[in-house]
């Protein structure tokens, strides 16, 4: 495993902030509410105060990429949401690769083209918002890695060698510049898995995307998404993956919800549980299972919890 990172986490997050603005993810709070809770609980245990705000709306990026929003609306929404965070003098932490990717890209467009910035700020000025670009955008996975020593110190439920196959998700890695790792062969999640007592599994199609982005899960599910995911699960099963982790609730939907459909179509028996990395960290840090919302998952976690020694409900 490559121990060196392209961007040192200590350079990316020099000081551990006392509080962060947690950017609500629609999918992370509706499809898998346990993800939202796990992120909040984990940050709390690691000593970071979580600030959220009901005035924050959807990042509006997903439907933009599905061709169903004009870029103008997403640029204005980004300016509005980020101006809201700037009002609190905090940095923005997302727990969805989508929110991360869209906020980064849209704020990049705003901050590198005065015409777009003026257009967006003019639109949101009526409610007292003005975006300047002071809040930095992070994904909580960067914070997990920055605080890896704190996590390792506080593990109360080690993973007992559980074989974990990670899924990074494209919209973090595709950012390409300024991300922690080499997008072509990232390993920082595996390092975290090892620190928590798990066995990271490098399955062959580890970097294959979830296939659900830009709505192809709705429009091209049978045509391309399923054959695509089939390859991924064949390779994960061959490598003996017990549990798959994601850092994007959208990827989680694709990887978790599609398994019964793949089983039906290809006469297979895939049953690899898929949860958010934050849920796994929260679990090892001792957050009660009932607080992690695993009942939202399609593929049950019973076997995984048995292996870690935490039956459901304990």
């Amino acid at each position, binding site marked *: 495993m490559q121990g060196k990172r392209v961007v040192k986490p200590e350079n990316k997050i020099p000081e551990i902030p006392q509080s962060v603005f947690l950017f*609500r993810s*629609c*999918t992370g*709070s*509706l*499809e898998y*509410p*346990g993800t*939202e*809770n796990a992120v909040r609980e984990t940050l709390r245990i690691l000593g970071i105060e979580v600030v*959220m705000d*009901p*005035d*924050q*709306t*959807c990042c*509006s990026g*997903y*439907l933009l990429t*599905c*061709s*169903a*929003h*004009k*870029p*103008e*609306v997403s640029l*204005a*929404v980004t300016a*509005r949401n980020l101006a809201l965070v700037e009002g609190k003098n905090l940095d923005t932490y997302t727990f969805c690769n989508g929110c991360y990717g869209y906020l980064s890209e849209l704020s990049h467009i705003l901050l590198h*083209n005065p015409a777009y910035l003026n257009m967006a700020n003019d*639109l*949101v000025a009526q*409610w007292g918002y003005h975006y300047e670009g002071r809040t930095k955008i992070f994904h909580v996975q960067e914070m997990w890695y920055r605080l890896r020593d704190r996590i390792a110190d506080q593990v109360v439920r080690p993973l007992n060698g559980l074989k974990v196959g990670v899924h990074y998700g*494209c919209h973090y*890695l*595709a950012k*390409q510049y300024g991300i922690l790792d080499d997008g072509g062969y990232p390993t920082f999640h595996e390092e975290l898995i090892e620190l928590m007592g798990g066995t990271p599994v490098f399955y062959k199609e580890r970097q*294959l*995307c979830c*296939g659900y*982005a*830009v*709505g*192809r899960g709705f*429009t*091209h599910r049978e*045509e*391309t998404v399923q*054959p*695509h995911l*089939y*390859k991924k699960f*064949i390779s994960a099963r061959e490598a003996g993956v017990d549990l798959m982790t994601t850092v994007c609730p959208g990827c989680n939907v694709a990887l978790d919800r599609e398994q019964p459909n793949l089983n039906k179509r*290809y*006469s297979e028996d895939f049953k690899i549980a898929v949860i958010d990395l934050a849920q796994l960290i929260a679990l090892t840090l001792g957050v009660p299972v*009932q*607080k992690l*919302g695993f009942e*939202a998952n399609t593929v049950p976690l019973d076997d995984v919890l048995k292996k870690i020694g935490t039956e459901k409900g304990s």
Partner: protein
Amino acid sequence: MLREHFASAEDELIACILPREVRALPREKDRDRIENLYSKVDIYGLVENLENCLQCGKCTGICPVASLSPSYNPRQIIHDILNGSEKRWLESEEIWRCFWCASCYTLCPVDIFFPLLMMQIRYLALASRHGVKYFTPFKRFAQRAREDGLTFAPGSPKSRERIMKIRSSIGLSPWPEISDRAREQYKALFDLTGTTAFLESIREEEEKPLALTYLGGRITRAGKKGRQTGK
């Protein structure tokens, strides 16, 4: 040897009699003949450097969709855009297959941000009412999101109840906390930016047929036991 040969040739026999500074000859480009060719596609000016494309094909080599559906070929799409072969991509089934994983961008030697190109060529296809069937589901989602301030908030009481039950049981507020003010402002931005009108303007019944315009649109199908059984 060779160096010496060229040095002497330059000096004597095949040297151009014009001075070096005035010898440049720009090659003919499509943009000379078709006005605003590039800006017609990069409507929002987000791609910037499409004309730097080397046609190396790395984008296609790494593309997970191209591996299943060889007729989807990002390299060829860029080639057609730069050539002005507009009809071919505009009316194609293939452009709707891209997953937007951006692997192509991570590998591109000249950093062409293909996903933002894809976004814009899909707008252009929609403008001519091609691919409406791939837009319609999201039209409904977008119209709902406009009301909710959230994407994918389920409409049916049963699904809402299920989410609220799970959220309450783990100690979260039953519904993601989003203020009425936030929802109103989100909605207003849809109206002010013309997104509401854009959504309404594209109607299902206006759909024009798409065609597999690249290599017959072959899809390879992963067979049982992981074997590839191409059709």
